[in-house]
């Protein structure tokens, strides 16, 4: 690696934790993280969706969309009693004696005594007296949905960077011509002007570009500026006409002539070429397949039957949406029962995907959870009996009774409002550089 990731120490920077130093030097084999000072208690953590900032225990930190003012947090321990159903009706939440609070589900990232702001890291002086870290003006929290480092269960969705809660990606070292885009849950390298997917060629294994003129009509080199400083794994190779082409970790990068829009990746599967991912692809368990629905690829069970998760966010007041969730392991709210009359009927409609005894789990996206016997999209409490079932981002996955073939969408969007529903799990991009099993229905 040409440019060392050893951080430069100077007096202006607060003490860096030893852990983060070590992490920096061990060099992820991915896009390099920018070497910038961090406060004590803040670490870098590799997740399936990029390198994120994490707390001292390695648990992912999040920002909240409802914290719209700089360095101000509206997430408190106050029990909210009034909700807004999104149609202008206000109502009182049920079960007030058991209502969670925003902070009980999203603990704040506390400031260690004696710590000082540095770079984009600032300190929020909360009205309740506590001190909380903020990054780029956004207060930081962890989530009770995450049980181990590397999980990002509170940032669910097609874009990890959409929704009420977002992870905070560590800034990475990218040339002006390169950005990171998302295809499904994957972070891919793209051009910065056209946002087109980048690729590398197996033929370029010696670090030189072997794409001749004919090849270049299909695969366009991504050019580097005439004045440029190589760093962070980015170097350039000189082509025959003396122009410079970017290379990442020694591999020259290209766009594919047939890609027409950001997120297009038609070059995938072309012999000898690979999509340039910002980090290696996390794996998918053997028991999980990809099935093609009319709305695109989705995850399915071993037979290709569409998988669904229940996601629920309390219908809070305008400007406070997302403060509490109703899809946590301890939730027995009536929201999900509402779509199927009662628990017995619901257990008949929605069937979990039980995990084999010796099922292997890789990465932090898929996991195995324990479900109570009359199953529901909740986990058993510790010590209680139950069945082992697959989960995606901490949420147990289910098939829908009325689907008997791969690729169906009968269960899609069954729910209440936007914030409480069963949805299938987007598998866009799972076929990049190799895919999990795909199962298709026979046509009729």
């Amino acid at each position, binding site marked *: 690696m040409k440019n060392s990731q050893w951080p430069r120490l100077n007096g202006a920077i607060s003490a860096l934790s030893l852990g983060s130093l070590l992490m920096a030097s061990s060099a992820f084999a991915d896009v390099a993280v920018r070497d910038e000072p961090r406060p004590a208690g803040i670490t870098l953590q590799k997740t399936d969706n990029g390198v994120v900032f994490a707390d001292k225990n390695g648990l992912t930190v999040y920002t909240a969309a409802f914290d719209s003012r700089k360095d101000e947090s509206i997430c408190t321990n106050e029990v909210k009693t009034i909700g807004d159903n999104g149609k202008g009706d206000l109502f009182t939440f049920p079960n007030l004696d058991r209502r969670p609070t925003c902070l009980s589900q999203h603990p704040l990232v506390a400031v260690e005594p004696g710590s000082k702001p540095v770079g984009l890291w600032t300190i929020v002086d909360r009205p309740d007296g506590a001190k909380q870290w903020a990054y780029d003006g956004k207060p930081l929290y962890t989530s009770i949905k995450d049980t181990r480092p590397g999980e990002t269960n509170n940032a669910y969705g097609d874009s990890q960077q959409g929704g009420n809660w977002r992870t905070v990606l560590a800034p990475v070292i990218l*040339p*002006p*011509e390169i950005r990171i885009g998302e295809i499904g849950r994957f972070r891919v390298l793209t*051009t910065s002007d056209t946002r087109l997917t980048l690729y590398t060629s197996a033929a370029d294994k010696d670090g030189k570009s072997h794409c001749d*003129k004919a090849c270049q009509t299909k695969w366009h080199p991504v050019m580097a*500026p005439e*004045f440029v400083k190589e*760093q962070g794994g980015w170097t350039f190779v000189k082509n025959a006409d003396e*122009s410079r082409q970017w290379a990442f970790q020694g591999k020259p990068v290209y766009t594919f002539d047939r890609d027409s829009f950001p997120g297009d990746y038609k070059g995938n599967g072309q012999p000898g070429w690979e999509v340039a991912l910002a980090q290696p692809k996390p794996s998918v368990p053997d028991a999980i397949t990809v099935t093609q629905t009319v709305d695109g690829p989705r995850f399915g069970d071993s037979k290709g039957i569409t998988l669904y998760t229940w996601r629920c966010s309390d219908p809070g007041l305008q400007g406070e949406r997302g403060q509490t969730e109703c899809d946590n392991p301890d939730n027995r709210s009536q929201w999900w029962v509402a779509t199927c009359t009662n628990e017995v009927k619901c257990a008949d409609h929605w069937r979990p995907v039980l995990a084999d005894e010796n099922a292997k789990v890789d990465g932090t996206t898929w996991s195995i959870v324990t479900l109570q016997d009359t199953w529901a999209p909740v986990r058993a409490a510790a010590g209680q009996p139950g069945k082992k079932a697959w989960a995606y981002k901490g949420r147990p996955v289910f098939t829908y009774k009325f689907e008997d073939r791969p690729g169906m969408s009968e269960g899609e969007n069954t729910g209440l409002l936007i914030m409480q529903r069963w949805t299938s799990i987007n598998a866009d991009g799972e076929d990049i550089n190799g895919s999990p099993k795909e199962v298709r229905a026979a046509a009729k």
Partner: protein
Amino acid sequence: MNKASLFGTLAVLGAALLGTAGHGADHVASVGVPAARLITEDQYVNTLKVVFGPGLKLAPRFAPIPRVQGLVAVGSSHATMTAGALDQFDNAARLVADQVTGRENRDFLITCRPKSNTAADDACAQETLTRIGRVLFRRPLTTAETKAYVKAANQNAESIHDFYRGLAVSMSAMLIAPEFLYVTQPTQTVRGKTTLTAYGKAARLSLLLWNSYPDDALLNAAESGALNTPKGLQAQVERMVASPRLQAGVRNFFDDMLVFENFETLSKDATTFPTFTYKVSVDAREQTLRTVAAIVRDDADFRDIFTTRKTFLTNDLGSIYGVRIDKPDEWVPYEFPANDPHAGILTHVSFTALYAQPGRTSPTRRGKAIREIFLCQKVPDPPANVDFSKLTNPDPSLKTSRDRLEAHRSNPVCAGCHKITDPMGLGMENFDGAGFYRAEEQKAPIDARGDLEGVQFSDAVGLSKALHDSPKATSCLTQRMLGYALGRPLDSNDEALVKSLNEDFINSGYRVRHLMQTIAINDAFYNVEDRSAKVPTKEASNASSSVQKQGS
């Protein structure tokens, strides 16, 4: 440098240039009195995106450049600078400087590091500004220039406490300096012969082949003197012709020659042509450019542009041509079947729709366009008092354009000009005003017969073939390419050169790359002589300003 003094400098510069007199009373054509050419939008973007990378966000809207002798490239030496136009350059300059020195990109784009971000750093400022200045001014900065720009950077850095912002101020100033905005023609006289200097040659070469300022390697060849030797020049020309960047030069030439700026004012009547959309017009321009560029890239016979059934299409274009597009979200190579009426660029929407009225065809416009663009001939504008009523409120028994245009042809006042346009334009009548093919007009069969300078044809394919075979079309291309390369109007003094280039072009098999390469290594491209003393015996056969506008 403020704007007022900028104007002053430009004026002085202009005068100094015009005063340059070359020796060498060579009768061979030459660059002529070097004129300063204003940078075009494309050249600006091409240059800066090479220097600072394609990630640079840049979409300038500079004032349009007049068209002279059929080309904007020639008009660029007639372009004037107004305060408004300078404003545009100033805005663009700040945008570029901010991006280059901004936090996001500076680590990559500024190759040295100042000792402190909040103070001046002479060494880093000098290193950066001399490298950038060399490329922008197409030559190394003089000592005085270097001193001035570095001083400005340092002063600003100290007063704002920001090294990078200080740098941005100087960069910004460079980007509106006349040395950057104008491509001048510095000369040298060696053994009695006056030519462009090596840096002057580099600039000329780069504008022709890449539509851009010289890259680092070309500047090095100038610096080392290699460009002053035939071998060194040849090596650079070969490098540049072999490069994918040649596409930029080729596309710009044809976009210019085919007057595609007319697309910017193209509109169709939504009632008559409800499926002709803005996207169709954007794609139509690109279709023809890709078609022509492919012929050049494949080093094929240039005349194929008139007859080839191979082209490139999008889904929107497919709906006009009535063909299936296998990949509806992409550009696809497409070949029309043999015997299909679509053959050559005259049958592209970029010609048929562009040279037509919003609601109908215009054989006269089409004929005029063929004469002026492909034959380099001048068609006079219509008189101010022409009566269009017979065309717009026609007798209903006159079903086709041919019938309606009879009125002009039978009127002796009109006949003179229409005689030279309509016989060709009527050959295109199988394509309506939006480019759709039709066999009939108002249920009357279309008669597309005509003649091109004595060659008979029965339809657009025949007309295109006649153009393909026409020696005038070939020599017109040669003239245009030479005018484009020299950046000045041609006159009778250039005839011998045009003739010899044309013969060579024909002998090469009508290869455009060969023509460009031949021009690029030709002495005439670099010789300088004082032509003000020479009175052209006559204008070149295609000379005098002719602006191809949407007129009649």
